[in-house]
């Protein structure tokens, strides 16, 4: 190619451009406006409740609502709570409960994940599906089922144990709570752990072994350190969940007088008799935040934000599978046993009880009593229809709100270099450390005080649910956006597309899988959630979970069982759908 150069330098500068009608000198860019709006919404949703909680913990609310005209500032709530021996019992119980349940869940989940991903266990795919299926069964229902199986008076299994061996097991005990919670958490733990195992390219392990490392050395120096961040992440995520949970502590803890912090908040703010003690409840809520914030902060410090978002690489190569030999079928049997205990048995007992007019053991007389009246009653009741409609509204609205907000937040966190990023980061992270009972409590207080007429409607629950799940949503959408190269957006702008068009034609289509996934996850979590609807319950905003709890609490065992069966079928199908879309991505 010949050079074209050798022309004289650019001639005299051209005349100044024709003056155009000058625009307004400066107007905020769309990005700035968006940042301000998103920060404002998050502040309202997240910081509002936190301020309310802290505020009401310093207020004497024995005579009325916190932060209202008559209330006075005081430290009395704190002295009362910390002078009460019950507080330390609840604190200790929470630690034991969380520790025990996590130990069970992790032991089983790591074992199962390793068996399915790294050994030649028979039917790995079917095993995977069966292991994950129980994640569709809400904890409330699992607890009810185990109460039916193992309560000391007429639990089905207890009846058998009594006749055969002359002893019974009491599920209304700390051990019972730990067992049910631990078994119930296996599927979600398994999902997190197996994702970590899968994401790890086996070539890294091969590199170790070709460097001369033995199998134990490889495990110790490569496999375990590489999996640590993911395992630690799963562990911290689950600590928050188990501290927060209200299902097992209500169904199994209350009858056995085993109180943990979450049930303590519930009982103090919505006592079965007498006035609510919002001040003390707020202090308990703050105590719970203190409990989960430490592991969360330690985790964030250790792993760093960037790493938490690293995406799981595609499985380039199937790793070598360990030959189990004669242990293949015993291993499968162990897995089967778990599926039996974790899902089949609870579901069967619920079906059985749902077709009985009243609850007793299994006998010829009971078989003769089989009736479907329970189902007929439930489906002909208007209250049930309304509750299911509310549940649907709740799931859809919370899902859409949380995902929309999460998407904007993630995009700003990932793409903008503005100074507001750390604030968005913090605001989106905070609900994660904000236990449901505390969110429920403070949001109910806010709308008791503020003149916004949503107290007692389903919308207050939607608001609380969106607040609760914006963290989860942000995590999912952030990893979605990180995978989209920024130049794809910039290319849109240089092609002449405005920001709106870039979102509509480029970002949204590319993010669709992440949206669907995040929406379904939030939807599923919302319809299973008992804590928030219960903390915000009123006659007009009953959802499926509070309806179910109401029947159980009042002793309508058959109705509770019928509802449990129906809800289990719905949520298991929804979960199956979710896993199916997730797997395709």
């Amino acid at each position, binding site marked *: *190619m010949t*050079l*074209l*150069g*050798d*022309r004289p*330098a*650019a001639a005299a*500068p*051209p005349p100044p*451009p*024709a003056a*155009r009608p*000058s*625009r307004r*000198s*400066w107007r905020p*860019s769309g990005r700035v406006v968006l940042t301000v709006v998103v920060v404002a919404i998050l502040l309202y949703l997240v910081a509002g409740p936190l301020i309310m909680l802290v505020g009401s913990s310093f207020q004497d609310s024995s005579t009325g609502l916190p932060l209202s005209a008559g209330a006075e500032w005081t430290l009395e709530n704190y002295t009362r709570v910390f002078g009460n021996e019950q507080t330390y019992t609840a604190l200790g119980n929470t630690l034991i409960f969380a520790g025990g349940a996590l130990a069970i869940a992790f032991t089983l989940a790591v074992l199962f994940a390793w068996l399915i991903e790294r050994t030649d266990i028979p039917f790995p795919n079917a095993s995977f599906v069966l292991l994950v299926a129980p994640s569709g069964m809400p904890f409330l229902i699992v607890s009810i089922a185990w109460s039916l199986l193992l309560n000391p008076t007429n639990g089905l299994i207890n009846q058998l144990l009594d006749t055969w061996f002359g002893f019974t097991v009491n599920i209304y005990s700390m051990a019972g709570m730990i067992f049910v919670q631990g078994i119930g958490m296996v599927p979600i733990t398994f999902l997190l752990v197996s994702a970590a195992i899968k994401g790890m390219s086996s070539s890294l392990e091969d590199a170790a072994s070709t460097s001369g490392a033995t199998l134990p050395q490889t495990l110790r120096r490569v496999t375990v350190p590489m999996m640590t961040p993911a395992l630690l992440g799963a562990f911290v995520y689950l600590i928050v969940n188990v501290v927060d949970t209200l299902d097992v502590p209500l169904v199994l803890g209350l009858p056995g007088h085993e109180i943990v912090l979450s049930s303590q908040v519930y009982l103090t703010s919505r006592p079965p008799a007498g006035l609510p003690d919002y001040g003390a409840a707020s202090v308990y809520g703050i105590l719970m935040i203190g409990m989960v914030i430490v592991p969360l902060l330690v985790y964030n410090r250790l792993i760093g934000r960037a790493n938490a978002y690293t995406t799981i690489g595609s499985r380039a190569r199937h790793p070598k599978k360990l030959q189990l030999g004669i242990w293949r079928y015993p291993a499968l049997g162990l897995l089967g046993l778990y599926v039996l205990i974790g899902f089949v048995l609870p579901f069967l007992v619920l079906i059985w009880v749902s077709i009985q007019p009243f609850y007793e053991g299994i006998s010829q007389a009971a078989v003769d009593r089989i009736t479907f009246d329970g189902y007929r009653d439930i489906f002909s009741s208007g209250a049930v229809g309304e509750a299911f409609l509310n549940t649907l509204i709740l799931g859809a609205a919370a899902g859409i709100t949380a995902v929309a907000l999460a998407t904007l937040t993630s995009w700003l966190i990932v793409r903008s*270099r503005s*100074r507001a990023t750390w604030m968005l980061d913090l605001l989106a992270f905070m609900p994660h450390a904000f236990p449901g009972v505390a969110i429920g409590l403070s949001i109910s207080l806010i709308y008791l005080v503020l003149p916004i007429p949503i107290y007692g409607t389903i919308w207050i629950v939607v608001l609380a649910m969106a607040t609760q799940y914006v963290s989860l949503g942000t995590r999912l959408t952030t990893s979605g956006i990180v995978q989209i*190269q920024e*130049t*794809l957006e*910039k*290319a*849109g*702008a*240089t*092609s*002449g*597309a*405005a*920001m709106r*068009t870039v979102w509509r*034609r*480029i970002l949204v*289509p*590319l993010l669709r899988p992440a949206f669907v996934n995040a929406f379904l996850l939030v939807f599923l979590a919302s319809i299973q959630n008992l804590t928030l609807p219960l903390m915000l319950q009123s006659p007009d905003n009953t959802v499926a979970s509070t309806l179910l709890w109401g029947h159980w609490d009042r002793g309508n065992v058959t109705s509770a069982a019928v509802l449990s069966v129906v809800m289990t079928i719905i949520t298991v199908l929804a979960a199956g759908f979710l896993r199916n879309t997730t797997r395709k991505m």
Partner: protein
Amino acid sequence: MNETREADELEVEETGGPRKHAIHVRGLEHVYGTGKKKFTAVDHISFSVEESRFYTLLGPSGCGKSTTLHCIAGLERPTSGEIELGDTVVVSSRRFVPTHRRDIGMVFQDYAVWPHMTVFENVAFPLRVSRHKVRDVKERVMRILETVGMAHLSQRRPSELSGGQQQRVSLARALVREPSVLLLDEPLSNLDATLREQMRAELRQIQRRLKVTTIFVTHDQYEALAMSNRIAVMRNGTIVQEGTPREIYREPKDAFVASFIGVSSFIEGTLQTTDDDGFGWVDSNVGRMRTRVSPDAVAGDRVLVVVRPEGVVLQPLGTESQENHFPAVVDYRLYLGGGYDYRLQVGGVPVRATRPANEPYRNKDKAVVHLPAEECIAIPAGEEQHAPPPGTIPEDPRDQVPGGLT
């Protein structure tokens, strides 16, 4: 394509002056971050690109080339300065036209071809989002795909294309709305050497055919020399030298430009006299020599004499007494296929020479090196040591085609 352009121009001429597609950048500054993390990536640079010319921003990694380009595209908001595209001021203290309102087309280093659209849809996108309704979308898209040789693959998805094909799609997308300015951010750097050379030629041809004013960013000196009408050499956010490829190569302004563009040997010395014909005498480390003299150098200055390896001549012993002839030793030589790359010692100064394969000099041989005055230029030495010593110049061995540049 050509015809439409001409038709366009005629039409415009009827209604007013000819369409101006020049680019003017004045006092452009861009600062990243705030407070302690403040970093001036572009420091008050100015340049102009004439209509339908190919202008290259060349410089080492991190010197602010992409930032400059992104400011022109509107992807970054400059801290200060003015930018004019065509006859529109797009950036000034009072005004900032957002990217999508600028009449530009841009090709990104990673192509940024949208994976959820077919080739056709990718290229049609700029027309479809245009503020003016475009009627003959299909025709125009197919025509531009034809131009880049991708028409037969218009229904493919990007995941089914090779790197070079994605690059063409990206180019077609940038050109389809016939922008007045084409911005290219290292579009060739992701391609392998052969494809890069081929695309280099094609890109230039297409640009010349469509007569679109182009700013091209690269850190590859050979690409810059081969393709550009004019080159601006950047360093630390400033333009060090601006000129035609020949000027930049033959008359580097300082040691940085000399060592960044092409391979150079440097000989230190003092400028003794300058003549009217642009030549002068330098008292150098290897001896007294006649060289061309840069206009920036004055008699008495410390200077560096820059010699390109293609200009160096090797001669048998016994010719030492002639002008600009010095005794030398062959340190070693590298075979380049077309010839040898000699590493010489001339009075303790390392000098490189590129010579045909048929010359007899071998490792450790003594010889006489002739540095023709026409091939040498004396430039001011400046405060700093001439940065990278010869031999450690960043270079891509694949591009070392001896003599291929003159």
